[in-house]
């Protein structure tokens, strides 16, 4: 192979590599944006939760961050992707089972009400700012700067192995 042929091949290889890199990088960025972030009111005294701890909070079994700070769950109304993902990954329940779970909780006098239902990410974030101890789940690219995003098992949205992909 002549030198010019070698250079041509090298150039093609570089172009293909660059194209692939851009493709995968973009895919990674898009994935990170679509991951669901666990967002918390600034008063929530944790930065990282294990998957199991997050599940206990979502099930309503763990109701206090500290003696003076109650957990308030803000969960999207049915059909939202955020809710579907929570039900599938954390609750391992169908929609009717999820409803029955909270009716049972109230029935057993373990809580006075279920999670607060929010109808959009904007509403979730607006309410989150107002209620100390509250947490919600929104798409990572919709989280405004300055809000507290909690790690799950030490991972943030976009990290490989993140639970809420």
């Amino acid at each position, binding site marked *: 192979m002549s030198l010019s042929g070698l250079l041509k091949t090298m150039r093609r290889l570089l172009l293909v590599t660059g194209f692939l890199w851009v493709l995968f990088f973009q895919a990674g960025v898009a994935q990170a944006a679509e991951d669901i972030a666990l967002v918390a009111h600034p008063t929530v005294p944790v930065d990282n939760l294990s998957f*199991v701890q997050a*599940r*206990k909070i979502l099930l309503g*079994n*763990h*109701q*206090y961050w*500290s*003696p*003076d700070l*109650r957990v*308030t769950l803000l969960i999207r109304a049915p059909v939202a992707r955020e809710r579907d993902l929570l039900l599938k990954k954390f609750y*391992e329940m*169908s*929609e*009717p*089972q999820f*409803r*029955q779970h909270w*009716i*049972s909780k*109230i*029935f*057993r*006098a373990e*809580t*006075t*009400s279920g999670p*607060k239902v929010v109808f959009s990410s*904007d*509403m979730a974030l*607006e*309410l989150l700012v*107002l*209620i100390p101890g509250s947490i919600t789940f929104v798409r990572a690219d919709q989280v405004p700067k300055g809000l507290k995003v909690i790690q799950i098992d030490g991972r943030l949205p976009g990290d490989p192995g993140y639970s809420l992909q």
Partner: protein
Amino acid sequence: MTEGIIKIFALTGFFLFGVFFVPEALWADTSNPPTNEMLLERIEQLERRSEQQTRQQIISEMRTKYPSLNILGFGNISFSTTDEAGKTSSFRMGQFVLHFSSALSPRVSYFGEISITARRDAGEGDPKASGFDVEIERNIIRFDQGDHLKISAGRFHTPINWWNSTFHHGVWLQTTIDRPSMLGTLVPIHFLGVVLEGALGESSLNLAYNVGMGNGRGKVLGRAGDAGDVNNNKAWFVNVLSKPDRFFGLDIGASVYGDQITTTSGAVFDEMIFSAHLIWSKENPEVISEYANIRHEAKSGGATFDHQSAYLQIAYRLPWLEARFKPYARYEHNKLDPAEPPLSPTSLFKRRAIAGLRFDVSSYAALKIEYRKEKKDSGSDNNSGLAQVSFTF
């Protein structure tokens, strides 16, 4: 000159009058009527403002207020037919139950439960007409110190039986039509007193406890001592529960309950109940099993009577047809000492097997059909067919 000054004052007066008193509409520039774009923009502005106001109103309503009363109800209607002598096939209105739950502050909450039950003898006259009994089933005020300590006072479902704590008075919540027979006479259902509960440490076993003290059974053993205890010995219980992280859905626990019971005839017995449960709470499959040993020891003479009761219930939510169907089966076994004076347990059956199907008509209503076969100590077998519509509202 004077005229000039008067004119200036007059003009100024007219100007000021115009500015302050002439309606704004008359000032409007009608020479340039608003364009469609301007109107559309104005409509958009108004819509945005309205949406913003609605959202703020919703958000303001969603912030927890104290007290925040929530009401939840349960009801059911059943039909049963049996070959048992002396019984007729009939429709029955099940309990009409209302729950009131309210947060009184971030750490104080209230829970109330009222039932209205149809009874053949709840009315007036001689013989008594049928009617309805109204009862306060639960009446609980709770203070939360945190997840590790919650202190409650009031009337509870005695938490030494899993079914009693989880489903009692909530027929729609349970898979089957009726509760297991161990509840009621054998294991006390209600308890009036003080209860401490909470999580035990932070381990993967998720241990929790309940400790309580209060009035035990009344002279009629199926009833709690609501209007005062029948003796000076308070009833007490301790239970330990676990929901291990590793097996999400598993719930295991054990309880001890002690009391001194005084019967209508004045006889006094020490009562000690040991019970345990093992539950797989998911619906594919659902497994519920409980065991209880009830021991009564006479204070005079020292005679001891032991009764055992156990049941195993298995159900499976079928994945087809929107997962609306759930077949189930339960087997109950009561081993009772017929010589026992306080309980006179001969009315209870020895064995009972049930098989049924639950169909969830909607998210909040279910239709159940069930077949039962019971065997009594006398050796007689009874077969029954039941149907029930249960709901929450």
